[in-house]
């Protein structure tokens, strides 16, 4: 357990820069969140963040974000796979537009997705006429918007790992008589699992907090399609800072929990993989 200093110089300056910028941009502002919600007593705080309307807000946000992120795991895996393993026309193009959801303002995405999925939109009318399913202004609509903003996360975390997997392992597995399914399950999957988990958690966390695209498509009906970030906004409009910051604090807590779960999962998985190797 001897933690000796690295001999590489520059610890001080890099630590200095990192901590300074981190404090100004992230830590100090986040502290004001705590300060403002501390204006409520503990029981008031608990009451504020557990009102039925607020609980249903968390539930709507978390459940739709979860479903959207699952969809993104499956599609992200497929996308990463075809981008790494196959050659086909339009590959560069696909590779190029994956980050589009990052670049397109969420409001623009929200507006155009809403227009497309209302009962008389291009896509919405197909679903409405054939199956009687409404997309915009329901939880399905929220999920659609969240799938959109979450696309890049899983693809971009799995893709580089998949690229690095040595084809020899797979060939060895194949020579040893494993079929494609077994090879994928036993050889490839364990390698990319940490990347999948981290892609999923990032997409999940980002989706829970998403506001810009969702407000347009959600319909915002209390108990049905009202998301947690919207509740923060409405508390603000009522000039109730402590309530708004309390809900924000809970959401921040959720984000930290998700990140920690990810960190934990990463270390467990990497231990298991390394232990086996």
């Amino acid at each position, binding site marked *: 357990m001897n933690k000796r200093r690295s001999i590489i110089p520059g610890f001080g300056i890099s630590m200095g820069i990192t901590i300074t910028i981190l404090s100004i941009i992230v830590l100090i502002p986040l502290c004001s969140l705590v300060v403002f919600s501390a204006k409520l007593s503990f029981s008031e705080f608990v009451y504020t963040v557990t009102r039925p309307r607020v609980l249903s807000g968390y539930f709507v946000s978390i459940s739709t974000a979860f479903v959207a992120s699952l969809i993104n795991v499956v599609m992200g895996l497929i996308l990463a796979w075809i981008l790494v393993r196959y050659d086909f026309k339009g590959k560069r193009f696909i590779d190029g537009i994956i980050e589009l959801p990052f670049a397109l303002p969420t409001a623009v995405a929200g507006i155009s997705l809403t227009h497309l999925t209302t009962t008389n939109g291009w896509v919405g009318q197909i679903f409405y006429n054939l199956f009687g399913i409404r997309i915009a*202004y329901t939880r399905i609509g929220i999920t659609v918007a969240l799938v959109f903003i979450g696309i890049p996360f899983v693809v971009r975390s799995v893709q580089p790992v998949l690229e690095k997997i040595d084809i020899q392992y797979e060939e060895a597995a194949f020579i040893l008589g494993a079929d494609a399914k077994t090879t994928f399950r036993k050889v490839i999957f364990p390698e990319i699992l940490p990347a999948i988990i981290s892609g999923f958690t990032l997409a999940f966390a980002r989706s829970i907090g998403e506001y810009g695209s969702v407000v347009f498509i959600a319909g915002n009906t209390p108990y049905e399609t009202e998301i947690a970030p919207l509740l923060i906004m409405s508390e603000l409009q009522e000039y109730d800072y402590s309530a708004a910051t309390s809900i924000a604090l809970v959401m921040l807590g959720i984000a930290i929990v998700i990140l920690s779960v990810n960190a934990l999962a990463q270390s467990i998985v990497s231990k298991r993989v390394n232990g086996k190797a």
Partner: protein
Amino acid sequence: MKKKLLSLILIAALGASVVGCGSTSSASGIDSEEVPKSAGETIELTNVSYDPTRELYAAYNELFAKHYEEEFGQKVEITQSHGGSGKQALEVANGLEADVVTLALEGDVQVVADAGLIDDGFTSEFELDSSPYTSTIVFLVRSGNPKKIYDWNDLIREDVGVITPNPKTSGGAMWNYLSAWYYFEQQGQSEDEILDSIKKLYANVVVLDSGARGATTSFVENKQGDVLIAWENEAFLSLQEYPGEYEIVVPSVSILCQPTVAVVDEVAKKHGTADVAKEYLGYLYSDEAQEIEAQNFYRPSTKSIYDKYVFTADSNTITEIPADGKWINDNVNLTDINHFGGWAQARATHFADGANFDSIYEQ
């Protein structure tokens, strides 16, 4: 070679950031000059307003700039900000440097005053409770009125989809809610019965947008619901933008909405714009400005101009913008906020956390 280029870029970036930081702070320093502007210079004025007034102030600012230059020989440039009334009030209270606020209701201006930015008695600073123009709440229905919606009691029928914004986030929506309340009260319902009717009404709401403009878009562009409860000026604007597609239905009772204007004294003092700000709001009562307000479908407060735009209605449905420009239907029983005991009282009874509006959504 490439390496050099890259490191050059990095160094340049570093340098730019240092210089840039300096310039941003100095640039923001200019904004808060404390000396009154000298003659000849362009005066900058910031007007923070609510959502539906965009068209109105675009026209009025032009008129005012012309008037001010003729009268005082100085150019005025007005910067507009629009958004949900409550949100705008909060931002001004938080430090958004508005010289004047022109908000949807007195209660929102009060928030700015409570932050210590507006001197007491702002409602008597200008005539008529500091509301140079008023509006009311009407219904917008699809052409031909397929669902036969004529009055508030039609909105609680099970087959009707209603669009109205959330009163917790939208000033206009509070007026909507209060008008509905007044109607059921006029029907002789007890408080419990009224609550029950309001509950039915909001159960019919298909999309509860966060602002008046969002609600109009849901109804008009995205074709949601059968009826939009809207500001009169918004409804007429939709009629103008989409001729033949919509009709306005004027309900039997409604509410007199009094958008309130005020000089943000502290900010104006700091900017040295107190006089021009006062002139800006005062000129809203001039005949020229009242005309512009009427043309933008706000009810002017000057009687003679108001009368110019009134028509005697034989039905409560308006299918198109009248060719003669007479659009004000005077045949409505209008209540006002005093009926609800003023804004503080109305907020506490209806819109605060756990108050009436929350209770109708409790399961």
